[in-house]
């Protein structure tokens, strides 16, 4: 796939930016008057241009962590710093693709993607860029449809295109391929790598799929659910460096051990042991 988005960004491309999380914790009040600690002491330094995969059991706080970086939520403790400057509300250095597509229901896919363009993008340039992004995510033929007229997977790809439209310094993707069929999922993973190779962006991507994490990321961050933790535990259970350069071989044997390790960390046995007959 040929990806040359640089041509239509009109010099608006932000350079990839570093992300520094230090001591990030988030505690929510619960209806009963108590509190629920979702994130504790998250320390993570992400280099500019790095791809980080966040994995962890459902409800462990992956989306919550992304919300801290996108400044849609503020941590109870600690700080989030992008490129040396703390993040704040309406921070345009980051762009998010949410876990749900969250498209404007009455706008076409084109209009929805255009909503992600940086403000002040010249009209023609913007239109060209949106068309290009839709082409890239394989939705050129559906550009004039509304979200309710397309499948969940198509909506999710639109949401991805909208996040890419910003050409952000930090791209935050919350299970961006979760609703896709296996084949489209592989295609979109390669698309993401192409975009990343074509123009530098720091990527933090949440996924449930260990294969996906190992295929895409430089490092995989395994988060734990604090509900099954000791008081000394912090949210990050483990950080795994993925060896080798991208594009990786999906069936790389070197990764087998890592895969088993991560699956175990997620509480999944790497090999299914059939129950012994009684």
């Amino acid at each position, binding site marked *: 796939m040929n990806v040359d988005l640089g041509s239509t960004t009109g010099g608006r491309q932000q350079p990839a930016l570093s992300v520094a999380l230090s001591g990030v914790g988030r505690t929510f009040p619960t209806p009963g008057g108590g509190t629920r600690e979702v994130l504790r002491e998250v320390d993570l330094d992400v280099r500019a241009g790095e791809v980080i995969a966040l994995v962890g059991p459902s409800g462990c706080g992956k989306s919550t962590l992304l919300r801290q970086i996108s400044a849609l939520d503020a941590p109870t403790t600690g700080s989030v710093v992008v490129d040396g400057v703390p993040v704040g509300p*309406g921070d345009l250095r980051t762009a998010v693709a949410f876990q749900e597509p969250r498209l404007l*229901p*009455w706008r076409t896919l084109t209009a929805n993607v255009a909503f992600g363009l940086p403000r002040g993008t010249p009209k023609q340039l913007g239109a060209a860029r949106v068309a290009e992004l839709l082409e890239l995510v394989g939705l050129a033929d559906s550009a004039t449809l509304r979200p309710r007229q397309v499948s969940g997977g198509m909506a999710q790809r639109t949401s991805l295109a909208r996040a890419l439209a910003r050409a952000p310094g930090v791209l935050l993707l919350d299970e961006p391929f979760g609703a896709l069929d296996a084949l489209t999922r592989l295609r979109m993973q390669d698309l993401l790598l192409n975009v990343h190779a074509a123009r530098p962006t720091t990527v933090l991507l949440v996924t449930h799929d260990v294969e996906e994490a190992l295929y895409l990321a430089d490092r995989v961050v395994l988060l734990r659910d604090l509900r099954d933790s000791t008081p000394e535990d912090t949210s990050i259970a483990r950080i795994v460096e993925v060896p080798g350069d991208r594009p990786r071989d999906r069936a790389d044997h070197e990764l087998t051990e890592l895969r088993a390790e991560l699956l175990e960390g997620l509480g999944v046995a790497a090999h299914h042991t059939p129950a012994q007959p009684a």
Partner: protein
Amino acid sequence: MDRLLELEGLFWESVVETLYIVAVTLGIGGVGGLVIGVTLYVTRKNGLLANAPVSIVLNLVVNFFRPIPFVIFIGAVQPLARWVVGVGIGNRAIIFALSLAAAFGISRIVEQNLVGVDPGVVEAARAMGAGRPRIILTVLIPEALGPLVLGYTFVFVALVDMSAIAGVIGGGGLGNFAIVYGYRQFNPVVTWVAVIAIVVIVQVAQFAGNRLARTILRR
């Protein structure tokens, strides 16, 4: 029937007067209600401009005025009408009172419909860097437009109803026509002509509102 022919001129005048009162009120009260409704919505807890004092006071004001029966409301705001529009009687005073009442009523309809907009979408817009005015104008109101049109249609019909008592303070319109020339002169035919005219106005308005809302929802 002869009487009806004599009254024909007055009848059409009353139709025009009713339409005029309702249209102007819908314009003024509609904009006012939109502003109050949007303010009610954005100042809610966790809203775009969450502001507890403004929210509490505004809710109190709206809740205070809304339940007042309109026939009493007209009298109650008469001093205010004199001060704002210069007169306490006639069509201008009735438009003033109606607009005020409509604004409070509409504000709740607007608030309800905005609450119905997916907060996830609003947050996404916020994450895209859209400022609050832009979110209100390009996300919230357009997304809620279909139901809002139905809400405004409902208000239009309610205004036709409420404007019928304009006669109380010397206003005109079909209600006044029916009371003065029908009811007081023991002429049920005249009363019923006015009734039918009101029914026709309401039907046409409702039909147009439904059409418009459907078109908007399908866009």
